[in-house]
């Protein structure tokens, strides 16, 4: 765009590569540490290449029950994402496409709720969950996550539905579909790429959430971020860098893989849209 001259271009490319490396370094470092023995971690100068070990992934994982916690996190993230997608997409559709009194106010309220800090909700959630005997259960955490996911979905999907042509559902309704038929048979399939990318963001947000999980779980339903916070707190006494890095790698890996897998699907959806339309 603005860059003129070969020198400026080369400098810009060099800068881009440098910036990318700087931003990637902590991740590379984390992966490296996760395969090292303590004696190779706590040395000066740092050892870049040393004996490989899977200790951090095996012995510690068993001790800290990392895998069950991973399962918890998957259940909570998937559950809250699905609930929020259904509720949020329907609300987003109604607010953009249906004439109703108070739509503007409703949209304002739902979007404003995106600005509510979670700290304003944690005390009652903890107290009520405790009184109802619902602490440390998936459903409690899932419902807590809905508070920040639903406004988020409405926010994203509203912009998305607005870009769909009106004739689409008009046609469907002329064909005898009701509003629900038009929504589920026409609008949802047509918005699939947008729905999927929104859902990915929801899953990531739920996957890495800490505050709600910290106060609502203590044993059975503990999620990975809570476990990591515990390990990080232990780091002060030294020694747990390897396990912390290993768990860190394990939390990043599924998200990256998931994004890659779904990206394929996204590309396919794109191609279908272009050819079959």
């Amino acid at each position, binding site marked *: 765009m603005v860059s003129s001259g070969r020198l400026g271009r080369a400098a810009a490319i060099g800068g881009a590569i440098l910036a990318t490396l700087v931003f990637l370094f902590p991740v590379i470092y984390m992966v490296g540490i996760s395969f090292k023995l303590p004696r190779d971690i706590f040395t000066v100068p740092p050892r870049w290449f040393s004996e490989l070990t899977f200790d951090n992934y095996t012995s510690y994982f068993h001790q800290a029950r990392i895998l069950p916690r991973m399962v918890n996190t998957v259940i909570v993230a998937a559950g809250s994402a699905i609930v929020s997608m259904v509720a949020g997409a329907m609300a987003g559709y109604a607010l953009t496409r249906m004439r109703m009194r108070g739509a503007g106010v409703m949209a304002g309220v739902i979007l404003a709720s995106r600005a509510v800090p979670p700290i304003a909700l944690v005390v009652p*959630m903890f107290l009520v969950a405790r009184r109802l005997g619902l602490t440390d259960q998936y459903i409690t955490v899932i419902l807590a996550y809905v508070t920040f996911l639903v406004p988020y979905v409405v926010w994203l999907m509203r912009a998305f539905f607005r870009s769909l042509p009106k004739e689409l559902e008009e046609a469907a309704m002329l064909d005898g579909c*009701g509003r629900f038929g038009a929504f589920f048979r026409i609008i949802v399939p047509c918005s699939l790429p947008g729905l999927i990318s929104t859902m990915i963001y929801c899953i990531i947000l739920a996957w890495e959430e800490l505050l709600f999980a910290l106060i609502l779980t203590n044993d059975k339903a503990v999620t990975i971020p809570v476990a990591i916070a515990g390990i990080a707190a232990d780091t002060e006494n030294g020694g747990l860098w390897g396990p912390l890095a290993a768990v860190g790698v394990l939390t990043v890996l599924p998200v990256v893989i998931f994004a890659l897998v779904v990206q394929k699907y996204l590309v396919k959806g794109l191609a279908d849209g272009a050819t079959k339309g």
Partner: protein
Amino acid sequence: MSAVRTPSSRARAAGPARGSGGPLRRRGLRLGEPGTAWVFLTPAIVLLAGMLLYPIIYTVWVSLSDFDLSTFQPGDWVGLKNYETVINDPGFLESLKVTGIYLVIALPVQLVLGFAIAFLLNVEWRGRGVLRALFLIPMVVAPVVAGGVWRMLLDPLWGVVNYALGLVGVGPVEWIGDPTLAMVSLIVIDSWRWTPFVVLVASAGIMALPSDVYEAAKSDGASRWQTLRHVTVPLLVPVIAAAFIVRWLGAVKMFDIALAATKGGPGQATDVVNLYIYEKGFRGLEFGSASSMATIVLVITMIITYFLFRLSRYLENRW
């Protein structure tokens, strides 16, 4: 991201074929059915009323009562007593100040850095796509992991950062131990985690810039700086405003990075308000004070957010 554009094209293609049902039944088509609209809204409203509105009311209720730890329920009504306590609590005021400093420095840093890197990544060459993809990786590192890993990097004894600084004769630097540097560290970690998001948004905005405006500017003999100042920045104002708002909404919730990296310390140097309230409530079991503080934070956040929205609207309309 690019996928967002497909469905409309697909829909447009599907539209006419579907529409062959004929205009005869047009009268049966009522777009203004308020009843159905409310049915569509019901799940979201029920969820948000139960999990958002009710807890907020409950928080305010707890903040106005004397919390009874024996029954674990709000007890007698005490009016504004809890508020009086927290307003005179130096720790709370300090945590508000710390949060303010963090927001005022971190958000501009992330925006400037994000847009600068987006411009660098916009230069066309073969590796551009790969760099863009790699750049997004920090975005999927959970904040609590980011805090933990950076804590290792910045460790005064074994950390790689101090080792590298030592090679050029600086240090050892007490990144986490010194109050000022701990805040710097917190901002560095947060910026590492969130600048890629700004890059993503900025890249999309930059790619959407119309090229004919630049040709016009060039033929008018505008310098590079003039082009940036009078063409690019005004055109990008909506994108900058949007990125800022989304970052603001995320940054006011700052909790996990501070917990994992500095635990609010040393002293209260990085004790952001969410962390302070959490400690008060769930370690100190002072639910009354915690709720009053949470209510104050809620009100402050909503007011500032409202004005930021107004400001971004205003900026969008002005340019």
